[in-house]
C-alpha cells in the first residue's frame, strides 16, 4: 500500500466525525523507484491531508518535510521529487492502520489494506 493511498483513506465506521488521518504502524515495507510525474504531484498536492503526510513521513523515517506547505513549493523540483519518493515509491507490505477516533484497526497484508467492517459498525 502506497502512502498516497494511506493519505486518501478514512475510517468508515458509522458516526465517526472525521476518521483521518489514520495512524500508521509499519511491520514490513519496500522502496521502489518509479518514473516521476511532476504534473501529477502538483495536481494532488492541494488536496492532500498534510497532517496525514507528516504522520506517514514520521512512520517511515522520512525527514525534511515542512510543517505546512505553500504554493511556492510547487516549483521546487526537489520537493516534488521528495513527495514522489514518499507517496508513490514507498510500499507498506505488512502493517496496521488505526483510526484516531474509534481505535479500530485495519490490517495491511501483502500490500493490501483491509477496510471491511462487521455489519454492526457501519
Amino acid at each position, binding site marked *: 500500500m502506497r502512502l498516497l493511498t494511506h493519505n486518501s483513506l478514512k475510517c468508515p465506521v458509522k458516526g465517526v466525525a472525521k476518521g483521518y488521518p489514520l495512524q500508521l504502524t509499519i511491520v514490513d515495507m519496500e522502496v521502489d523507484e518509479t518514473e516521476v510525474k511532476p504534473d501529477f504531484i502538483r495536481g494532488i498536492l492541494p488536496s492532500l491531508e498534510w497532517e496525514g503526510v507528516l504522520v506517514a513521513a514520521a512512520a517511515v523515517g522520512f525527514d525534511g518535510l515542512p510543517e505546512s506547505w505553500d504554493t511556492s513549493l510547487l516549483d521546487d523540483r526537489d520537493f516534488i521529487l521528495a513527495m514522489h519518493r514518499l507517496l508513490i515509491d514507498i510500499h507498506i507490505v505488512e502493517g496496521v492502520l488505526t483510526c484516531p477516533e474509534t481505535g479500530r484497526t485495519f490490517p495491511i497484508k501483502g500490500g493490501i489494506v483491509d*477496510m471491511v467492517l462487521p455489519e454492526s459498525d457501519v
Partner: protein
Amino acid sequence: MSRPETTAPPELFYNESEARKYDSSSRMIKIQEEITTRAMEMLGLPNRPCYILDIGCGSGLSGQVLEEAGHYWVGCDISSSMLSVAAEQDSDTGDLCHADMGQGLPFRPATFDGIVSISAIQWLCYSNAADQDPKLRLNRFFSSLYTVMKRDAKAVLQFYPETPEQAVLIAQCASRVGFSGGIVVDYPNSSKAKKHYLCLSFERSYHVPRALTGAETMSVASGGAMSMAGSAAASAVGTFDALAAASGNVSVLGRERDEKTRRMTKNGRKALRKKHSVEWVRHKKEQMRGRGKAVKNDSKYTGRKRPTPF
C-alpha cells in the same frame, strides 16, 4: 446460465479458482478492456495524470487500462481472491484495497479526479445476509461516492442490471443523493453487446455522453429495445428527469414492430377487419361457405352501404 449475482455473494463467488479463470479468460480480458476504455472516454478526463478510484476493481483488468493511460489509481474490491490476482500485476501506479462498497467508500472527502466501475455496482442490489439491505447499501454507496469525488470529477459506472426496474432503482438512488446525470445504453438492440453506463456529475447542466448504436438499420425482427425515458429510440438514454417522470411506469417494451409487420399478424389482421365493413362481410361470407351454408354470390354490391334506410 444464471447470473453470478444470484449464485453467491461476490466475495464467495469470486473465489481463488473463479478469480484465476476470470483473469485468464481472453474473452473477459477483451470485454473488460473495451468497457474500461469506453468508460474513460465518457469520463472526459483532462490531459494529465489523474487520481482515479476503480470500484470493484476485481483482478485488475480495468486498472491496467487506467495505468496505460498514465493515471494513478486505487482499486477496491470485496473479493480477497480477486485482489490477490490483481496484486500479482505489481502495478506502478495502482494500489489495492479490500473494502465493501455497500458499507460506504472508505476515503476522504474530495480525493479523486474521476471514478470508474466496471461490471460491479449491480452486486449492491442483492442481499447476501440477513442484515444486508440493498436499499441501505445503495444509499451508503452513493452518499459516500458523492463525498469522495472532487467537485469537478465525474463517475462512470458500467453495470449489468437484471431488469429495467433495477437500473431505475440504481439511477434514482444516485439522483436522490444529489448527482446529475443518467444512464447511457450502448448498443441497446443487441443482447450481447448492450452495456449500461451510469454517468454522474455535480454540474446541474451536465449532459450524458451520446450512446453507441452500432448498425443504423434496425431489422424488423430485432428485439429487446429498452426504453428508459419513454422513447424507443435506437440509442436509449435516460436522464434523471426523464427517469423520475417514468418511475413506476417502467416497462420492457418487448419487440417494437413496425406498422407493416403488425398488420400481418393474426391480431393485426383482425384489427383491419372492422365489424360490418366490406372486408368483414366478405370474410364472414367466406367463413359461412366454408361451413357449407347457402351464401349468395359476391358481387360489386357486396357489403355496399345501402342508400336509404327502409
